[in-house]
């Protein structure tokens, strides 16, 4: 699968980036391609391109706060969770997403 995602946490300096790393690691360990944009206190980094979003099979929003640019994902299957979920069980999450998308 092609996965794109956004991570954002309240303080925007730690969880945002740990979550990004874990999400990518977990997705790649299950054989998927994964690109993650971060929206920390510093602002948007690694912004997803329209092409990447168009090519994506699923969008994972691991966010604890309001994010910018949610309207970019109109019409896409979106999974909305907290950063906590990724921190605690990233692989389980990816497996769950796999089963949801196959249905």
């Amino acid at each position, binding site marked *: 699968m092609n996965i794109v995602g956004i991570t954002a*946490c*309240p*303080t*925007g*300096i*730690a*969880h945002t980036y*740990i979550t990004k790393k*874990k999400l990518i*690691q*977990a997705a790649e*360990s299950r054989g998927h391609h994964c690109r993650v944009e971060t929206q920390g*206190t510093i602002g948007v980094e690694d912004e997803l391109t329209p092409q990447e979003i168009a090519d994506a099979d*699923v969008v994972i929003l691991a*966010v*604890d*706060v*309001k994010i910018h640019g*949610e*309207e970019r*994902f*109109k*019409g*896409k*299957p*979106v*999974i*909305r*969770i*907290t950063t*906590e*979920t990724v*921190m*605690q*069980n*990233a*692989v*389980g*999450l990816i*497996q*769950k*997403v796999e089963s*949801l*998308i196959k249905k």
Partner: protein
Amino acid sequence: MKQQLTMVKKHVMTGISFMIPLVVGAGLCMAISIIIGGPNVSTAEGTFAYTVNRIGSLGMTLVVPVITAAIAYSIADRPGVAPGLIIGLICTEIKAGFIGGIVGAFLVGYFVNWLKKIFRNVPESIKGLVPILLIPLIATFVCGLLMFYVVGQPIVAFMDALTNFLMSMQSGSKFVFGFLVSGLAGTDFGGPINKSVSLFANGLMVDGILEPEACKLLGCMIPPMGIIVAYILARKKFTKAEKEAVKACLPMGICMITECVIPLAMNDLWRVVLSSVVGCGIAGGLSMLMGVGASVPHGGWFVIPTFQNPVGYVICMVVGSLIMGVLLAVLKRPLKEDEDSLDGLGTSSGKAAVNLDDIKIEEIG
């Protein structure tokens, strides 16, 4: 219901995330001005230190408006911002403070959302008037009046009562209060409990009560140091992956990124949490007794010199870290042979596995 609660939390967290850099910028300017200009800097007009103090104090008056606007923005998107700023300023004016700002923000946010719903089917010709005229006017007018006449008053009374209660505490209850604030802040290393305590302490700090904020900071700064102490005392009880995680604790701990403890806590949940709560709690109790106060919500070791009684703070931090470290070193089990590998990804066999059943696909409309 659970869904609703998650949303409320998200809105408040958005507010906090906008507030933190503002309070750090303004609070530190005030603290620096006191360092260079002495305690009476706010009346020493014309001096350089006075100017720095003005920068900070003007910035602090924006804290409640910004958190109100940010929460309203999270609830109602852009139309929430303008009325949110105004309602927040009202809260500052009537001294309803931080709590008033949060209550006001939900009032504004949901009211604006309701207005959006009502105006959804207006004719095309006046569609442009809705966001530029109708929503700002009606939301500001109605919520502003409500804040002044209805919602604000009980909050002001509550804030006064809380302030008086905290001011009049005796030493025994001071210790218990400090133990609670720091212990809770040290429970989940930047997680929801820590954030709730932060909200409480930041709120009091904005309203000029600085002691709880120091307790909260202890609860954030002690855990990484406690882990390091435990590591020095009982190196053999740490797995390879844990050792890697410990390395990150020094730089991150100095910067008050207490999240670096999470990988270690995940591996050994109750031992790490228990020792952290005891260490932080005792430090927090001491800090209350010594009258340590902090006027900055973040910044790690670098902002300690700006505290009220910084030496006391350092003593509390050292004591707390030692207690936590010794306790953890004693509690931690020796390694079993096959335990020395961990992929660090968090798998479904993990002890604290989250519930994945509620996760579903949604569409963004």
